[in-house]
């Protein structure tokens, strides 16, 4: 994967030259394969393949970035989805074929760059190379007819221009711009650094998600996460013992500018955290673009919604359920859907599917909707189902969903009883003598993402050194200059690594200095 090796002059021949077909012994096959892999042409092909192989990941939903999209794709195109899945098209960036390309590229990169370090090290210490036999073939060339020239002038000029110069009776050889190759190597080695830091960092990292209702506390251990994805090398037992309480969550909407009317302008989660159980409580806030940095984790807000406080009482007035229930937002105006499960109800268990409308409005069809995400005029409607909640079977059930297949609807829908309607503070009777339900208050919840990657700072470090190397390798010109003195003529020739226009001027300047008389 060597770059900027010019076609005109090379440090090592094999990066650019066509490679001879191998004879049949295993060793020469291996050598042939290695040379192929580390050749520039193969690096070029691999880069193009990598670009091509990345495309499907932007066309099909990816499990890593958009898991719901994949579920939806399977639902809408079940047969095609299975077929695509066989080719790992929903996991493009961890697929075998994608990995194969970047691993080959990685090997090619290492195989090309490491030997060049040695070559460059030698070149840095060596004298500029001998002049080629035929200077007139060089891209910049000038011939002087006079043989009485002042080599010293040219040496001074070249040294002033930061050339490394060797001068003899027979002429001058000079070279400058070694930083170009240094930058090139720096770039490629930094790229290896980025890849290692990304790979290793992924292994040592973890990502967790947790929904916190105002007043709830998260303690940093695996059990308190709703979703927890540790890297292969992550030590779960070494997690920092911080805790974090969501004190309040607020949103700001714009009501001033007609164009923005009702658009969210800001989300703020006010939190209190403790680095260890015994350390002092620290108050801080988390906003979008402003994660909270705790030891061993960064905390982000990724979503929010409402958690109405519900109290269910049986017909004797005994409380059978009490607490905030997280309602999942269904649209941008936070029409939300929640499931309330009352397993302790007697004689039958029952559940409630409830819709919450922060600012209720009626559609032309008569159905309810919300037309603003702020609770200006909140209303909750409830459908009630009686029957087995399925909580005792031992199979994990989604806390936010109610499986009503085996249940009998007793309120809402076609049950004959109208869905219950509650505003904040209302208590209504449940049908079938089930007791009553109260909409006691309204809390908010925040979805938090907690991530930890000890090497992300190294990824950044190597990314920046990559950029530094890139600037050096692309901006610094590398040039070689020769002056040849013979009995009949004096020749000046120059060669550049990059496509370089100012080379002719350089040769002209040198020729001029040669003609000048010494002071």
């Amino acid at each position: 994967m060597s770059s900027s090796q010019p076609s005109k002059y090379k440090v090592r021949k094999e990066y650019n030259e066509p490679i001879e077909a191998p004879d049949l012994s295993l060793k020469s096959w291996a050598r042939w394969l290695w040379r192929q892999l580390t050749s520039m042409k193969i690096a070029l092909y691999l880069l193009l393949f990598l670009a091509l192989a990345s495309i499907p990941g932007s066309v099909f939903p990816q499990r890593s970035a958009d898991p719901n999209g994949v579920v939806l794709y399977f639902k809408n195109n079940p047969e095609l989805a299975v077929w695509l899945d066989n080719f790992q098209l929903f996991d493009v960036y961890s697929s075998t074929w994608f990995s194969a390309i970047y691993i080959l590229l990685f090997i090619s990169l290492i195989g090309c760059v490491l030997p060049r370090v040695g070559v460059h090290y030698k070149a840095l210490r060596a004298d500029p190379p001998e002049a080629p036999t035929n200077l007139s073939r060089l891209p910049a060339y000038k011939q002087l007819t006079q043989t009485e020239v002042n080599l010293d002038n040219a040496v001074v000029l070249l040294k002033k221009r930061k050339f490394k110069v060797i001068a003899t009776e027979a002429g001058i050889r000079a070279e400058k711009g070694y930083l170009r190759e240094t930058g090139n190597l720096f770039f490629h080695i930094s790229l290896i650094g980025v890849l290692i830091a990304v790979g290793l960092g992924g292994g040592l990292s973890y990502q967790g998600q947790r929904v916190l209702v105002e007043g709830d506390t998260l303690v940093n251990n695996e059990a308190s996460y709703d979703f927890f994805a540790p890297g292969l090398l992550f030590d779960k037992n070494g997690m920092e013992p911080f805790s974090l309480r969501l004190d309040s969550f607020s949103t700001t909407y714009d009501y001033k500018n007609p164009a923005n009317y009702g658009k969210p302008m800001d989300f703020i989660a006010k939190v209190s955290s403790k680095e260890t159980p015994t350390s002092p409580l620290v108050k801080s806030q988390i906003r979008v673009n402003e994660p909270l940095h705790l030891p061993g984790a960064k905390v982000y807000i990724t979503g929010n919604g409402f958690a109405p406080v519900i109290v269910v009482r049986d017909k004797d007035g005994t409380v059978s359920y009490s607490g905030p229930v997280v309602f999942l937002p269904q649209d941008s105006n936070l029409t939300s859907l929640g499931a309330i499960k009352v397993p302790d109800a007697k004689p039958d268990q029952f559940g409630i599917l409830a819709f919450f409308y922060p600012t209720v409005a009626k559609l032309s069809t008569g159905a309810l909707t919300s037309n603003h995400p702020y609770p200006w005029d909140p209303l909750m409607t409830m459908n009630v189902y009686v029957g087995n909640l399925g909580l005792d079977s031992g199979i994990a059930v989604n806390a936010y969903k109610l499986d009503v297949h085996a249940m009998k609807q007793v309120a809402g829908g076609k049950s004959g009883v109208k869905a219950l309607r509650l505003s904040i503070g209302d208590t209504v009777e449940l049908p079938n003598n089930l007791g009553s339900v109260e909409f006691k208050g309204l809390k908010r919840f925040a979805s938090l993402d907690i991530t930890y990657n000890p090497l992300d700072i190294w990824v950044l470090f190597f990314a920046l050194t990559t950029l530094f190397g890139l600037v050096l390798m692309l901006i610094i010109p590398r040039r070689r200059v020769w002056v040849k003195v013979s009995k009949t003529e004096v020749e000046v020739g120059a060669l550049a690594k990059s496509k370089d226009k100012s080379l002719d001027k350089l040769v002209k300047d040198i020729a001029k200095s040669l003609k000048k008389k010494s002071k």
Partner: protein
Amino acid sequence: MIPEIALNPELATLSRVIVLVALTFYAFSFIVLAWALTKRAGGKGKKDKFANRLDAIGLVLMGVGVLANGVGVLTRGIAANRVPWANMYEFSITGAFIVTAIYMASLLFRDLKFISSFVAGFVVLIIGSANTLFYVQVESLLPALQDYWLVIHVSVAVLATAFFTIAATLALIHVMKESTLIAKSKLRGVQWLARLLKVFPKVEKLERTSYQFNIIGFILWSFTLIAGAIWADKAWHRFWGWDTKEVWTFIIWTIYAAYLHATTTKGWEGKRAAWLTLIGFSAIIFNFTIVNMYFKGLHVYSGL
């Protein structure tokens, strides 16, 4: 708390009018410059005095256009109370301004007059489609976009695109000049095109200048990628997540990396490298249009 942001829709409307004035100047500039080019094809090439005069007039028109464009961008920013690059309309007018400004500035260092009509035509296309397809009234930013990285990440991306645009124009001429299909065609229109192509400099010069613009573009694009990753780490809780826009930024980076290797690989420098420039630039246009408008992802900020 964020301060109350005052939008100014009246000023935004004025800004739109100013941008349309710029479009008019660009359009006239394009007509005059294209006329100059065709004039050269028919006759004396560089020595055509009339064409030289047309060129001068065309560039003055372009200069007035770019000034108006700059004022349009500035007033848009003032009207929205933020940097004017947060939706497709704004990317387009800012991009057109930067491409033209960089082109005109580079005329001081390089003899690039011969692509003037291409640049004028390109910005006419960009502003024209921005005005008809992408126009939206000024709005404030969503919380996810309220960050100083918007200023850095997007402006550098636009800047990189400007350099890539000029490089791609040169590569296009290069490819056409070396096309045997055009050179040997018997169709009269194509024969005329072949004559026109002779007006342009030698392919070596096109190749060299294209390379110079591409490397600056590539450095800026690398920076865009890194800045985007830093911002993603703040806003999306990871520095890289193969979001569709991240994927395409990566694809573009990889194509141009391949281009850089091609320029120093035997058999790949020259025409093939020019083709890679064109492929890379097509990917940029695809990323800006199709990916912004139709692909699902986190960068759903096209504002359409």
